[in-house]
């Protein structure tokens, strides 16, 4: 059997920067980035669906607060949102003594909250656009069948809106992956954090950042292909 570890050590021999140690940092960074992005996307998606429905409501007092939320979160830099949440929670009186503190103490969770709120705002607007674009004929057909508005939302509007939203949502996923790079600002050792560490330790910007750029590029392509595949499957009926 081919001994992989020997091969690996040979590959690394004479290399002062990419030692097993630093590669370990990159690996941990990859894990952190993936967790952070995946969890915030899932949570953001769950929040965004009801918000998008409310945002499409005809009643101003339902849709306006949601619009305010998406406007603020889409109009300000994620970095500021992260700072406000990371430094802000600390100054809520007595937070250190509550059961929430063990969670908020870690940099991971404030970052996760900021990312979730951010992606939820963008996703809400994406879905709203898709809901708005539902073909009038489909709605009329549903009405003619005597569907209640609730049933119509569940069976007709949402399924077709999800499909329409897919390409835009794919972009949002990639955007989130890239935006997550700022997690390193609040001490998280994500991929970018690992690169900054390696850079600061060895003064080797090209090695540290090109390597991590290549990893991000691969991740981006993976997401891209995944969504292409999904689109092909789910939007097949739209092709001529």
């Amino acid at each position, binding site marked *: 059997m081919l001994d992989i570890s020997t091969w690996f050590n040979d590959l690394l021999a004479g290399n002062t920067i990419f030692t097993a140690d630093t590669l370990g940092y990159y690996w941990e960074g990859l894990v952190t980035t993936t967790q952070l992005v995946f969890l915030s996307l899932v949570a953001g998606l769950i929040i965004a669906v009801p918000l998008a429905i409310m945002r499409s409501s005809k009643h101003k007092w339902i849709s306006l607060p949601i619009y305010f939320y998406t406007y603020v979160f889409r109009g*300000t830099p994620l970095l*500021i949102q992260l*700072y406000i949440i990371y430094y802000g929670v600390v100054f809520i009186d007595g937070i250190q003594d509550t059961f929430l503190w063990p969670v908020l103490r870690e940099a991971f969770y404030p970052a996760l909250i900021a990312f979730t709120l951010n992606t939820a705002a963008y996703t809400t607007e994406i879905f709203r656009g898709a809901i708005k674009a539902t073909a009038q004929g489909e709605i009329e057909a549903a009405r003619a069948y005597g569907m209640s508005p609730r049933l119509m939302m569940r069976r007709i509007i949402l399924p077709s809106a999800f499909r329409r939203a897919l390409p835009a949502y794919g972009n949002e996923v990639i955007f989130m992956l*890239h935006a997550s790079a*700022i997690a390193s600002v609040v001490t998280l050792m994500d991929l*970018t954090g690992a690169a*900054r560490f390696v850079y600061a330790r060895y003064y080797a910007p090209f090695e540290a950042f090109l390597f991590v750029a290549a990893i991000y*590029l691969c991740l981006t392509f993976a997401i891209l292909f995944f969504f292409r595949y999904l689109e092909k499957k789910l939007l097949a009926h739209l092709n001529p």
Partner: protein
Amino acid sequence: MIDLQGYGPRLIEGAGVTIQLAVLSLILAIILGLLTATAKMSRNWFLRRTATVYTTLIRGVPDLVLMMLLFFGGQIGVNAISDMLYYNYDIDIYINFNAFAAGVLTIGFIFGAYMGETFRGAFMAVDNGQIEAGKAYGMSSSLVFRRIRFPQMMRHALPGLSNNWMVLLKTTALVSVIGLTDMVRVAAEASRATHEPFTFLIPVAVAYLLIASVSEWIFARLQKRYDIGFGGQ
């Protein structure tokens, strides 16, 4: 009013840096975007390939990573050249790659890729017949570009342009991480020193919303102008 604890003037200075940075990067991005769009539509295989590689690579990597690569790495690259000149030819020049220039170059470079896509789509939306008509009038190709392609292209490009500008504006916040004193950095510094993050971060967030709203209004007016003669869609 909020008590900014003496940080007011520095915050305003920081806001100035943010705006200058954003506007200069936008100009650079537009120039690069036009070049990229032109290259992508050119008949030359090499130009097309280069432009594709540029837009793909840039759009596949986080802004912050590119910024650090260009800011930290760019300096070392530039040094290597000037050191080479010094040791081999005794020419002693230095190229000052300051944080501001690095910020403008990086952001311009990143958004040049996005602008390239916007402009390419917009150029393709211009009716070919119009260009042929221009040629038939004996216009030179640069005149055709200036009088026909560019103004019509802008009409189609404006929505994308406005969108890119909004994203670009927010991206400028990242320069605070590489050490440029924009308003985010001043606010973060002040929050740490005073232990009052909300006092400084929220006004800065509002400032971003304000700049975004003003630019939205400007873009709406521009759109109206470029829509003249198209029934104001």
